[in-house]
C-alpha cells in the first residue's frame, strides 16, 4: 500500500510539474502557426542514415507530395537539448527563451504532429493542460468550499436553515449537470477574454457541484453532534470551537480530501466538455477541450489520429486521480472504525 501511494503521488507531481513549466518543455509557442504544414504527422526521429549510426537523433523536414507528406532525406537536422526558442514567461515570473529540446529552423519537430493550422500539438497539449487542469482544480476548490460552508451551517444550526439549505442541495442534485452547465453558460456572453472565460467557467462548474459535498459534510456534522465523545467533551465544558476543531474538522477534512480526488477529474472533464462544444475557452487559446473539438468532423477524425493526444493526456490525469481516490478512500476508512 505504501509503495503504491508513493508512485501515485510521484506521477501526479510529474504531471503537474510538466504543466506548470509548460513554456520550458514545449518547443514552440502554442499559437505560432505553420501554414505550409497543416496536419503534419508526428516527426520521425532517426538514428541511422546513409553514413551509419549517430548518437544524436536527427529529423528530416516534411515535403508535401501528392499523396501526403514525404520526408526530405536530403538534409538532416540534429535535435539539441536546451535550445533557444520563442520567448515566454517561465512560471509567469521571468522572461526567458530557453526550451528543453528543439531543432534549428527551417525544420520543425512536432512530437505529436500538427493541427489544422500547423500548430505544434505537443506544445498545445501542455499549454492546454494548464488551462484544463487549473480549471478543474479551481472548480473543485469552489465546490468544496461552498459545500463545506453550507454543510457546516446546515448541520450545526439545524431547523429552518437546515431545511432551506437541504432543499437547495436537492434542487441542484436533481438537475442533470450538463444541461444546467449549458444553460448557465448560455446566459453568459459568448465572446469574453480568455481570463474572464476561465474565471467564469470555474465558477459555473464549481457552483453546480456544491450540492454533494454539502450533503456529506452536513451528515458528518449532524452525526458528530450526537456521538458520545462529543457529549463527553461538552461535559468537560468544551466550547463549540473546541468541539469543531478537535472532533468535527478531522472528519470533515477527511471527506473533503476524498471528494477532491473524486471531483477534480470530473471537473476537468466538465471543462473539456464545455470547450469541446465551443462554450469554454475559445481559440486561439489552447485547451484540451477546444483541441478535441476539431475532431467533430469525421474526415479529421479518420485520417489524423494524432489529434487525439489531448484525450490521452486527459485519460492519464484522470486515471492517476482515480487511483489516488481509491487509496485515500481506503486510508480514510482504515483510520475511522465503523462509526
Amino acid at each position, binding site marked *: 500500500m505504501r509503495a503504491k501511494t508513493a508512485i501515485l503521488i510521484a506521477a501526479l507531481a510529474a504531471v503537474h510539474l510538466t504543466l506548470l513549466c509548460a513554456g520550458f518543455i514545449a518547443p514552440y509557442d502554442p499559437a505560432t502557426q505553420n501554414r505550409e504544414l497543416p496536419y503534419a504527422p508526428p516527426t520521425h526521429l532517426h538514428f541511422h542514415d546513409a553514413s551509419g549510426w549517430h548518437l544524436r537523433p536527427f529529423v528530416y523536414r516534411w515535403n508535401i507530395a501528392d499523396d501526403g507528406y514525404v520526408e526530405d532525406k536530403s538534409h538532416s537536422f540534429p535535435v539539441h537539448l536546451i535550445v533557444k526558442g520563442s520567448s515566454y514567461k517561465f512560471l509567469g515570473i521571468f522572461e526567458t527563451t530557453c526550451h528543453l529540446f528543439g531543432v534549428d529552423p527551417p525544420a520543425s519537430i512536432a512530437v505529436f504532429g500538427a493541427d489544422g493550422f500547423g500548430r505544434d500539438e505537443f506544445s498545445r497539449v501542455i499549454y492546454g493542460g494548464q488551462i484544463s487542469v487549473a480549471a478543474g482544480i479551481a472548480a473543485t476548490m469552489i465546490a468544496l468550499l461552498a459545500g463545506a460552508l453550507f454543510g457546516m451551517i446546515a448541520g450545526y444550526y439545524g431547523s429552518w436553515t437546515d431545511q432551506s439549505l437541504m432543499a437547495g442541495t436537492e434542487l441542484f442534485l436533481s438537475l442533470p449537470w450538463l444541461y444546467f452547465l449549458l444553460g448557465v453558460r448560455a446566459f453568459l456572453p459568448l465572446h469574453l477574454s480568455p481570463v474572464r472565460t476561465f474565471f467564469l467557467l470555474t465558477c459555473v462548474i464549481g457552483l453546480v457541484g456544491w450540492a454533494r459535498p454539502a450533503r456529506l459534510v452536513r451528515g458528518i456534522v449532524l452525526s458528530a453532534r450526537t456521538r*458520545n465523545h462529543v*457529549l*463527553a467533551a461538552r*461535559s468537560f*465544558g*468544551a466550547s463549540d470551537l473546541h468541539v469543531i476543531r*478537535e472532533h468535527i474538522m478531522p472528519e470533515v477534512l477527511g471527506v473533503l480530501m476524498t471528494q477532491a480526488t473524486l471531483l477534480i477529474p470530473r471537473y476537468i472533464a466538465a471543462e473539456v466538455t464545455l470547450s469541446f462544444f465551443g462554450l469554454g475557452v475559445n481559440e486561439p487559446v489552447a485547451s484540451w477541450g477546444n483541441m478535441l473539438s476539431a475532431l467533430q468532423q469525421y474526415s479529421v477524425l479518420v485520417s489524423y489520429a494524432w489529434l487525439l493526444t489531448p484525450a490521452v493526456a486527459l485519460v492519464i490525469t484522470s486515471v492517476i486521480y482515480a487511483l489516488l481516490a481509491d487509496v485515500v478512500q481506503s486510508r480514510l476508512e482504515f*483510520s475511522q*472504525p465503523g462509526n
Partner: protein
Amino acid sequence: MANSFPTTELNHAYVRVQGLSKGYVCGGRWCRRVPTAAASEIDFEICAGKTLALVGASGSGKSTVARCVTRLERPDAGQIWLDGQDIAQLRRRDLVSVRPKIQMIFQDAVTSINPRFSAAEAIEEPLRIQGKSRSERRSIAEAAMQEVALPPAGLDRSVMEFSGGQRQRLAIARALTTRPKLLVLDEAFSGLDLSTQAQIANLLLDLQAAHALTYLLISHDLALVSNMADTVAVMAYGRIVEHGGTQQIVTDPKHEETRKLLSSAKAAQSQLARRAGASA
C-alpha cells in the same frame, strides 16, 4: 407521590435534587409534536463520599436524570444543589466553574473516546480545555493512568489498541484529571464481561475511598448495584417509586417495580446460591 426523602442534615449532602422535571418533545418532520415527560418530580440526595444507585427498567428515565445532573441538558423545572450551589438553570458561561466538579462515564466505552485520538490526547482533553500547559498535562495524565492501573507507557498508543474494559478505564482516568467530586456512571458496566465488570467496580470502590468521590450509579442490574451502593432509588415511568438504604430495599421491597427488578435478578441466581451456598 413517593414519600418524602429522609432529609439528613442539609449541609452534609453533597448533591441534592428537588422537584426535577424534564420532558422531551418528539419533533421531527413527520410525527406530531408530542411532549413526553421523561422525568418528573425527582427528589434525591447523595452525601459526600457515598453512592446512590438509580435503578429501573430501560426507558424509566434514569439517563434523563443523569444528563440533567451533569447539565448536558437543561431541566424544565426543579433545583440541583451541588456543593451548596443551584446549577439547574445556570447559563453556559457560569457553568464553566461548575463543570470540573462533575464528570460522566458513558455506557459504551468504545464511542465515548474519539477513535482518532491517542490515549494521551484522550485523557488530556479536559486539561486542554482548561488551558493547562503541555508538561503539566502530561504529568497529570501519567498520574491518572497509574490510578486506573494502566501502563503509563500506553499513553502514546492509539485508543483503538485498547480493549473494551481498558477503554472504560481510560474514560475514568480522563474524568479524574479535573479532580471531580461527583461521578455520574451511566450504565458503566453493562456490556462488559463478568470479570471485567468486577475489575472496574473494584477500581471505582478504591477511587471512592481514596478521593472521597460521590457516585450517582445508573444501572438496570440490581444484583451488581447491591454491592456498590449505599442507597438505592428505584425509577419507573419517569418517577422515583421507592428509595432507601440498599439493605432495606434488597431485603423487603415495598413497590411492585422493585419486586419485579429483584425477582428477575434473583430467580436466575437463587438456584446458583442454593447449590453454591453449600460450598461457600
